[in-house]
């Protein structure tokens, strides 16, 4: 046990640490941008531009579970070429804004998927690809499969198929782009 865990020691009181700086900066930004009309004004000006950028650069997580993962790979390969729509796979959840669930989520892996979802920065969307992710699919009565990924994370787009074809995946991405366009929101005020 370190001393002074309950009450701050003298050193801790006197030092202005980076954590404190972040707290101060957050407070200032909150006050100036989010609460006051300045933020609303900036949002009004930049909303359309940011929304256009967001919907045309969808970065899904490179994360394959089962059959649909192969179709996900094929969709980015030459024949279907999902990169035409700005879909580029990233390897770490910190750089992504779409979580593609491509197969059944087992009870052993359920906390892992939840953690991946929590690690992604907002705004974020979830696509459930294939029957297994939607409802458990052929494994609906298994003892170790969660019947549907929407039981523990919110899902925006459902793509049916077992496995879903690459065309269906591209269609799903286009539907997601429409969804993003329809729910236009400012980055600062969230309106």
């Amino acid at each position: 046990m370190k001393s002074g865990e309950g009450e701050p020691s003298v050193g801790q009181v006197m030092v202005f640490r980076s954590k404190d700086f972040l707290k101060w900066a957050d407070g200032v930004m909150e006050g100036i941008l989010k609460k006051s009309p300045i933020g609303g004004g900036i949002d009004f000006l930049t909303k359309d531009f940011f929304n256009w950028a967001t919907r045309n650069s969808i970065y899904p997580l490179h994360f394959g579970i089962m059959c649909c993962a192969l179709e996900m790979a094929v969709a980015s390969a030459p024949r279907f070429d999902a990169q035409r729509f700005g879909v580029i796979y990233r390897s770490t959840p910190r750089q992504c804004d779409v979580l593609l669930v491509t197969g059944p989520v087992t009870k052993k892996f359920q906390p892992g998927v939840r953690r991946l979802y929590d690690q992604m920065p907002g705004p974020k969307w979830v696509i459930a690809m294939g029957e297994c992710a939607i409802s458990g699919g052929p494994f609906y009565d298994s003892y170790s499969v969660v019947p549907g990924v929407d039981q523990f994370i919110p899902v925006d787009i459902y793509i049916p198929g077992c496995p879903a074809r690459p065309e269906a995946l591209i269609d799903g991405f286009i539907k997601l782009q429409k969804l993003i366009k329809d729910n236009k929101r400012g980055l600062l005020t969230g309106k």
Partner: protein
Amino acid sequence: MGPQHPMTHGLWNLRIKVDGETIVDAEPEMGYLHRGIEKLCENRTYTQIIPLADRLCYGSSLTWSHLYCLTVEDLMGLEVPERAEYIRVAAIEMQRIASHLMWLAAYAADLGTLAGFIYTMRDREVFIDLLQALSGSRLTYNFPRIGGVAHDVPPNFERDSLRACTYMEKKLDEYDQLFEGSKVFMMRNEGVGILKKELAMNLGVTGPPLRASGVNYDLRKDQPYSVYPELDFQAISMPDADCYARYKVRMDEMRESCKIIRQAVQKMPKGKWRIVAPRNGPVGTGIGRVEDPRGEGMMYVVGNGTPKPYRLKIRSPIFVTVSAAKQMLVGYKVADVVAIMGGLDMCIGEADR
């Protein structure tokens, strides 16, 4: 590393202990995709299991449904029409090429040859199209039936298959130039992940990794099933036992597969392609063994006279091969993990079942 890691190609976890950069201990952790298929099979009828068997391995689903049908035919004592056998063999070999190309695409992308990914995925579509014409689906075919296949070959199947084989053989030479000409690819492959012959045999490693260790054991040759004895091909083996040997074995296997497809579609006799199978399985046991693209696939079925199997046990090649990961990894650097584990062609769907 894992379960979500660009190296893994599926859900599994590799725990490695390092001393500086050198690996001193490794322990793979499986089970993130365990769906309990063996238990599900006990609640399905014999016919309903074929689509489940398809979903065992997403890379080569046709081999697994074929293996399941072989096993149940062994249990029921059915004799499959010869035309069906030839259709099956042609389809399996197309599946083998597609599976190896999928592996090559992933492997190339892992080892920094992204052009390899683009080329192999492009050429995989040729065989996927053929299988789609045959069965109507892109990935999980549900094509073999107990006692034959679902339907006859489409028109012009022979012409298209021969064309695809000629195209593929030309492309394989191109790949050899692409990969072996790449210094990075060769440096990351040669002399890495050596698994000695005796160790490989003892650890139960099968398939291309075993043949790359110098054991020339191919079930298609050594314990032939279907119509393989009537076809002329070779089992490939290499003595080097490193990652490059595994790559080479798979490339040569694709060439052999082209040869087999060519013979199978030309020799295909006329006649029936399916016989009626009984609804209830008899009391007894049946086994089936095939050479999966990843190793020795095997099923053991126990029937009790009802329409549902009493017990179905599935032997997954990757499940056993991965247990040898420790022996392959220890002594190499952390950067070699991608090459060594990628060279095994992991398919978690069948390993976890």
